[in-house]
């Protein structure tokens, strides 16, 4: 099978000008969206995913709740304009259901659900743009959204994709690369270095698998650093804003609502 586009050229550059182990640009945005309790938008290169988290809140269906823990409910919406060929997928699509159940089962052991008995946490995943690494973006965005909703987690789950082109492993694949080479997604819990999710769908020799698997575990740590920085910066901003509110209300001596003060700098 000859591919038209060179995946890795002789100088060690990939089709989008990256090196083998280079990740794409990551942007993480934790700003408030609508009435969601927590939301996050993440972009890995051209892949963009928005996740909104609602809850813990009372479940719509009482029968679905558990007496000793909260239930995670994941719903995935893939925008029809997110891919090159415009195509509407219905909600019953097996691939979407699998994607949702992968996110759900990744976060079930990580979210401390036992703190919220008889309640439900809704996670809505919106895929806005797809260019490879969909599951990776989905998991990373969900982690951030859960953090911004203030839901206690055991660790930040960091996911990364990797692939092997003949014998050279590479990280964070684009659609072009995903279509051509065997690839896998690994989600790690950086504190313990343990693996919560690993999926691979294409044929790959067991030895090659070991290489790329170890590499992906390392790359997860890098994403973790980036996540931690984003969360810290966001929290710092919120704390600063609160300080400002307290100071301004104390200065004027009036009993001003903190939220109002927060919206007016100075």
């Amino acid at each position: 099978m000859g591919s038209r586009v060179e995946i890795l050229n002789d100088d060690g550059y990939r089709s989008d000008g990256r090196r083998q182990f280079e990740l794409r640009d990551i942007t993480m945005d934790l700003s408030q969206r609508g009435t969601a309790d927590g939301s996050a938008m993440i972009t890995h290169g051209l892949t963009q995913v928005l996740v909104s988290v609602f809850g813990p809140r009372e479940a719509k269906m009482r029968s679905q709740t558990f007496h000793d823990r909260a239930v995670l409910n994941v719903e995935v919406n893939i925008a029809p304009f997110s891919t090159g060929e415009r195509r509407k997928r219905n909600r019953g699509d097996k691939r979407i259901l699998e994607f949702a159940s992968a996110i759900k089962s990744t976060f079930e052991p990580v979210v401390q659900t036992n703190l919220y008995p008889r309640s439900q946490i809704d996670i809505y995943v919106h895929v806005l743009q797809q260019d490879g690494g969909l599951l990776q973006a989905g998991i990373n965005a969900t982690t951030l959204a859960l953090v911004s909703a203030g839901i206690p987690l055991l660790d930040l789950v960091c996911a990364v994709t990797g692939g092997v082109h003949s014998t050279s492993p590479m990280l964070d694949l684009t659609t072009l690369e995903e279509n051509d080479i065997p690839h896998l997604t690994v989600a790690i819990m950086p504190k313990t270095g343990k693996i919560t999710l690993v999926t691979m769908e294409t044929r790959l020799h067991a030895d090659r698998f070991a290489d790329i698997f170890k590499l992906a575990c390392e790359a997860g740590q890098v994403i973790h650093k980036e996540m931690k920085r984003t969360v810290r910066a966001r929290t710092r901003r919120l704390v600063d804003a609160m300080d400002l509110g307290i100071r301004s209300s104390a200065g004027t001596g009036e009993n001003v609502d903190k939220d109002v003060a927060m919206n007016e700098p100075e």
Partner: protein
Amino acid sequence: MPRPPSPSIPEKEFTYGALKQGLRLDGRLPLELRTPTLSFGPDLGWVECAMGKTRVLAQVDGKMVKPTPERPLEGIITINSEISPMASSEYEPGRPSDEEVTMTRMLDKVLRRSDAVDKESLCVQAGQRVWHLRLTIHCLADAGNLLDCACLAGIVALKHYRRPEVEVVGDEVTIHHPSERAPVSLSLHHTPYCFTFAYFPDTSTQAVLDPSLLEQRLSAGVLSIALNAQRELCVVQKAGGVPLAPDEVLRIVDIAVQKAKELNTLVERRLQEDWATRHVEVR
């Protein structure tokens, strides 16, 4: 939706206690497979696979269709699998449950997307006629590890199936009835086998291969690996569940490689035995 009855506390504690000592209720070793029994039906491509009390029936049939315009040179394979309430009272007809979605997708990945069947060899006339293979999987009974059993039944059915020979002269296609000319087997690139390992909440307990229904219910996560005897992994699937150390995953891969080789010899032997009982007349 009725929830499956959870095992009673004494049952749970007993099983966990036994597993911690490396003992299983059915007397197997932790990494021992229930030996699969393969029985073949009167038709080619009709296979019943039983692992312990788990039973799956797989059946392949082929017909000639017009290919899709996007892939004029490739045959079509579809996999029908539905878990009916027949397998176990846990399954309901109607909306697919999580297990069913996982199983259907795994079957699709293991048997179809891993390129086990050479799709181009199913093409008769480019853009005009191709073979459409339909693999139907019936789950007859679920006593744990339905997925591995279904994958095994599916791949053996594909290996067992033989399609009628076709002759193309100009634009005319003649399909020879099996009684006229010996039917030909499908060309398979490789034979993937699926292995499922179950993990338990207590991390000092060893993982078990081919979990029984009780073990599956008590497990805190499963890892499924599909691979062939040539050490090529086709699917690795661990979604959620208890977190594992990276070395553990690689250790499991090595074990699965061993098991795939053993299973491959068994399958080849059974297929040969069956083939010996069939009379093929070549005129």
